[in-house]
């Protein structure tokens, strides 16, 4: 079979084959794409709007965390001597307790945030 014959057969299929069903409506496709474009634009705009707020919220969280940690450290240096002795008698050094509390603050904050952001089951 020559190329010309193959071309004729394939072209015949391309040009003459018509399905009994009508084509899907173009308007539905166009509006679906348009709706998706509008939605994507709206989401982008919304993200742009809330970006400064999200940055400010992040900075405020960081500042609060640093303040809490500094407060704990300051509390440690002002600890009454008797309390330190009680802790030592219980087998814990005041430094260990302070480090544990320092680690507990960001951990608690992280757990709280994860629980709040977890999608409802």
């Amino acid at each position, binding site marked *: *079979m020559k190329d010309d014959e193959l071309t004729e057969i*394939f072209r015949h*299929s*391309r040009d003459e084959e018509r399905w009994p069903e009508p*084509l*899907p409506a173009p308007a539905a496709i166009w509006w679906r*794409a348009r709706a*998706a474009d509008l939605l994507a634009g709206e989401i982008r705009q919304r993200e742009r709007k809330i970006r400064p707020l999200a940055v400010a919220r992040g900075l405020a969280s960081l500042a609060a965390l640093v303040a809490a940690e500094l407060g704990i450290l300051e509390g440690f240096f002002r600890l009454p001597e008797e309390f330190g002795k009680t802790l030592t008698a219980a087998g814990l050094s005041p430094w260990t307790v302070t480090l544990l509390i320092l680690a507990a603050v960001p951990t608690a904050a992280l757990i709280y945030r994860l629980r709040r952001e977890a999608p409802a089951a």
Partner: protein
Amino acid sequence: MDEPEFEAFYRATAERLRVYLYRVCRERRIVDDLLQETYYRFLRSRFAGGSEEDRMRYLFRIATNLLKDHWAAAKRSAELTSELPDPPAGEGMAIRLDVHSALGALRAADREMLWLAYAEGCSHAEIAEILEVKAASVRVLLFRARARLLELLRRKGGES
């Protein structure tokens, strides 16, 4: 592209694309879904090609990628059905049926290649662009696909 412009473009090209999708995937029930998805992605891409032929090639490219995605997701290449539409009556019908039946027995990549070359009359460079293969390898791939098709036709001729 506004709605009337899209509608005119769709009316001019959709039947051609539908036949391509059907002849390559041979699953009638998914053809219209793929057709709609092709035009949807075309619109979302905001393709700014100049001529209608540029747009048509881009449509074929999207359609070909959608077919690949479909096969990859469903892993159905081996179990493709062969629901052929009613053949058009007239002279040369038997040989056309033989060719389409042989075409159906080929690999999807061969069907794409042959359809684009012989039905759409695409050049090697255009085929390479649509199928996302190297332009230099199209000549060899097309030659092999054609040889496989002719071999199937020869066997069919021997059987009957």
